[in-house]
């Protein structure tokens, strides 16, 4: 049944801090993850990935390896089960990484070339490391740059409009009193969640069962069914606990290889990726090179806005990091141009990584806004206030709610922004130069059709079933609070069952759309259930179950610009004699609709802000041009913030009501990271007078750029 309007009865669970329902299990080790659940007869698969960046596999010399202790099979392009990688899934045609061992071509370093299966994980690993694979190597190109000759403007997709344009850009720039024209770059970045990708697959009475760690069990089940040409009803995927995902945990080679191996060996097989393999097998964020041109009148009013963003993709699949989307929401101008361009190189296909587009895009745009404020002699918040649009700059649609200025006002008050001397390079404390910076944040607030079932049990409790995923965010707890309020019962009477594809289609934990989409379905099912319960009569032993499907209701949402907003503030200390940058404090104020669980919401927002700090100062994958592969692809080589880097961080929110919205919840999964790198870079400028337009702001870059009281210096890229 579809329910198009839902009333939200508030009994007090929503908006109240609740610890995670599974928190105790997780901290005591009782919660089992996909890589550690025991199964009888379990065999272990270990992937072998290519050591060349382009070419063909000449031979996989499996015979010696098959004689090694415990080895059961070596799957490769010569003997692996055939799969159908030519289908349209949730995100369209899949990245060919989901169809390994189907041909002898190697499109990049780290491409799967074989799976060794053995009785133990150690035996599989030793045999995989001993497996000799011979290649016919071809020249490769992994060197990304904005001016790469293979660059093109992609076709529009449902997920991304490639280019938007209005007005006469050159004329408006020429007529502007203040112009910023700058290039910003961000490096290749990886999500690499703490829990590596792991999946167990087995056949059970004609059904394929997969125990996985993913962002959407129905998504994975549906794509596995398509890949292996199975009846979707014969595939069951579960993912009870997930130790982080961030966009990386969709359909990936580990599930596909586990299914292949269990099909061949007729026993359960588990495949777990190593940290190093994750760098080439689970996606990442493309490096970006972004040119931003802003033109404004002397009073700061924007006349021209131009954002040209470049990224890379693989030669086998197109994924575009949509960095240029930021300005389509944030800033209007008489002439407005945004474009995402992409170049295919011999590298793995990038993918969605926390705040795709907005994270790198906001670094460029929000840095450029700060440069414009400097040129106009304006306060950066005043500049943004002046340029606050009334409607979507590109769409012309009204905003469902846009409380960005409330975020800036509250943030400025709490951060002490009014006391700031805007002049750079003047504030010293011992060897440290001090500065503060700010930036705006936004992220779309979408919803996708989902189904849910709610059962009134005979014992007076309620069971909710929905193929939601709790990737560590606290979604299970938040949905329990939502169900409890909708049912007008205490949360203790609600049993929340998630992450099982048998529960039916639902949105994945992605795009900051999970909780909003699932809550909608749960509330709709509860509404239907309460209608049925209101008819009276007893509850039979099997309970009374009501189901929802929000497809129609989601489709009926009026067209609006729907986004969460935020204001980021940072204070940094910079020692220009050593290049060290330390963030001293950060504050993020967000307008993100109704906050379901303040405890886990704050944690998620602070987590995003810490990631933004890492993006600003630490994160950078090194790709070796000679081999085409990574150097230092582990957590010793790929730096992110350690505890000692993380200062006092506060995240809070302002009221952000939307009475016309049936759910009132916006996503908070991604907005925490948006704008942070710009706020920190702007603070580094305020401290030193030098603009850093290339992330991360590493000590060597800061050291060589030095300091210039009064501003005016630009740090040059060294990579």
């Amino acid at each position, binding site marked *: 049944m579809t329910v198009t309007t839902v009333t939200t009865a508030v009994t007090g669970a929503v908006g109240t801090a609740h610890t995670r329902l599974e928190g105790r299990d997780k901290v005591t080790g009782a919660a089992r993850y996909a890589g550690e659940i025991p199964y009888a007869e379990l065999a272990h698969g270990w992937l072998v990935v290519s050591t060349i960046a382009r070419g063909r596999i000449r031979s996989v010399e499996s015979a010696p390896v098959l004689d090694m202790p415990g080895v059961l099979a070596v799957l490769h392009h010569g003997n692996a089960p055939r799969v159908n990688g030519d289908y349209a899934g949730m995100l369209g045609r899949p990245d060919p990484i989901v169809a390994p061992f189907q041909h002898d071509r190697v499109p990049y370093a780290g491409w799967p070339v074989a799976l060794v299966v053995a009785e133990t994980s150690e035996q599989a690993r030793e045999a995989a490391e001993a497996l000799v694979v011979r290649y016919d190597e071809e020249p490769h190109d992994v060197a990304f740059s904005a001016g790469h000759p293979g660059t093109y403007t992609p076709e529009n997709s449902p997920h991304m409009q490639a280019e938007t344009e209005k007005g006469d850009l050159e004329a408006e720039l020429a007529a502007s009193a203040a112009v910023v024209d700058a290039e910003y770059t961000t490096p290749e970045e990886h999500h690499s969640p703490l829990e590596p990708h792991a999946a167990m697959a087995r056949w059970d009475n004609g059904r394929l069962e997969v125990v996985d760690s993913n962002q959407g069990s129905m998504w994975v089940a549906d794509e596995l069914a398509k890949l292996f040409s199975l009846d979707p009803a014969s595939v069951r995927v579960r993912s009870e606990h997930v130790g982080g995902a961030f966009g990386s945990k969709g359909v990936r080679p580990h599930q596909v290889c586990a299914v292949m191996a269990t099909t061949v060996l007729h026993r359960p097989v588990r495949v777990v990726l190593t940290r190093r393999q994750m760098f080439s097998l689970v996606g990442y964020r493309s490096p970006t090179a972004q040119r931003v041109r802003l033109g404004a009148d002397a009073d700061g009013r924007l006349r021209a806005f131009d954002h040209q963003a470049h990224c890379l993709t693989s030669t086998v699949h197109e994924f575009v990091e949509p960095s240029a989307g930021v300005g389509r929401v944030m800033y209007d101008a008489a002439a407005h141009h945004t474009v995402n361009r992409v170049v295919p190189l011999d590298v793995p296909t990038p993918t969605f990584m926390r705040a795709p587009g907005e994270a790198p895009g906001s670094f460029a745009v929000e840095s450029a806004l700060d440069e414009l404020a400097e040129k106009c002699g304006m306060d950066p918040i005043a500049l943004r206030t002046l340029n606050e649009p009334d409607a979507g700059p590109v769409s012309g649609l009204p905003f469902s709610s846009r409380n960005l200025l409330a975020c800036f006002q509250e943030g400025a008050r709490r951060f002490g922004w009014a006391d700031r001397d805007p002049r750079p390079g003047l504030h010293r404390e011992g*060897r440290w130069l001090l500065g503060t910076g700010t930036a705006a944040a936004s992220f779309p607030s979408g919803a996708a059709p989902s189904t849910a079932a709610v059962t009134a049990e005979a014992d007076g409790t309620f069971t909710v079933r929905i193929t939601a995923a709790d990737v560590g965010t606290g979604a299970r707890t938040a949905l329990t609070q939502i169900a409890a309020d909708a049912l007008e019962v205490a949360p203790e009477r609600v049993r929340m069952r998630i992450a099982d594809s048998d529960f039916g289609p639902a949105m994945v934990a992605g795009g900051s759309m999970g909780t909003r989409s699932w809550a909608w379905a749960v509330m709709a099912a509860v509404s239907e259930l309460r209608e049925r319960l209101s008819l009276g009569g007893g509850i039979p032993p099997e309970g009374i179950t009501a189901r929802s499907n929000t497809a129609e209701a989601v489709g009926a949402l009026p067209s609006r610009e729907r986004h969460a907003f935020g204001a980021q503030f940072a204070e940094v200390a910079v020692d220009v004699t050593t290049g060290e940058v330390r963030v001293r404090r950060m504050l993020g104020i967000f307008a993100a609709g109704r906050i379901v669980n303040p405890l886990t919401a704050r944690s998620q927002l602070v987590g995003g802000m810490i990631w933004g700090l890492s993006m600003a100062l630490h994160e950078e994958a090194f790709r070796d041009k000679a081999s085409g592969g990574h150097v230092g692809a582990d957590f010793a080589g790929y730096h992110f913030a350690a505890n000692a880097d993380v200062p006092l961080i506060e995240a809070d929110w302002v009221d952000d009501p939307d009475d016309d919205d049936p759910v009132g919840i916006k996503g908070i999964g991604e907005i925490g990271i948006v704008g942070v790198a710009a706020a920190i870079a702007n603070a580094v400028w305020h401290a030193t007078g030098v603009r850093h337009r290339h992330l991360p702001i590493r000590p060597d870059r800061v050291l060589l750029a030095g300091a210039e009281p009064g501003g005016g210096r630009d740090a040059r890229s060294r990579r």
Partner: protein
Amino acid sequence: MREFGYQRVFDVPGAVALLGTDPEARFLGGGTNLVDLMKAGVERPALLVDVTELPLGRIEATADGGLRIGATVTNSDLAADPQVRRHYPALAQAVLAGASGQLRNMATIGGNLLQRTRCGYFADLTKPCNKRVPGSGCPAIEGEHHNHAILGASEHCVAVHPSDMGVALTAFDAVVSYETADGPGELPLAEFYLPVGDTPHLETALPSGALITGITLPPNPVAAVSRYRKVRERASYAFAIGSIAAALDVRDGLVREVRLAFGAVASRPWRAREAERLLTGGPASAEAFAAAADAELAAAETLPHNAYKVTLMRNLVVAVLTELTEEATR
């Protein structure tokens, strides 16, 4: 990962004898580097001889006023030792600047000296590396090398030694004691690490099969006013991109004695003897410190992405010696 044997030993002769039974055996201390390298396939020992129960876990004052540090003393215990903190503060600071609390609780000082470079090419079996596979080449020179050597490197290897502790020990003229089947021996730390040359895979002058039993610090009054400063790309849990151990004795504005060693600039902790020579007897001024640093760094050979280290080390010399001068004259 290769299957390996594991045996714990309880006396030094037994340890040396057991290692001698198998050319593919390795001593295991805290395992904080060796086990990582085993996982990466860089090290493939057939047998691990666990030396952590050997009676080498003490820190004792020597008769002449120095310190004798047993090889199995953990980094944490070394850093916490009152004698170390009082007489060699830079050594305690250096140890605390390294790794994490958990790693320092495991890591031993003998193992610390023998840890391998963290060059990303060295730890990656899919890449060439002269240190791992002699003659295979050094891709870092054309590739990723922003944290590689500027002093004492060669066309065959530009990796840096990762130790913080070793930098302070080098400044204070530490001597390494070892035991072999033929008996005990000693090596000054200054002679412990071999020049890179065309044999980057040969890292130390320790005889084959030797077990490090301890480190001796000679009495060193100047070390009481000493400091270790480490610059790294995050505030903790990262190797240095440049570090300095310095000790200074200043009287009446003149440098009476100075000790200076650099980390993360060479294949070994780098004693800055030229800078020390220039500074001794001269004025304790920022100009003199900078001139001494420039003289020491005149031999630097930089690559496209590590030239910043020259500026960094110069700035560190000036900053830390200036701080020590202020400390000495307070």
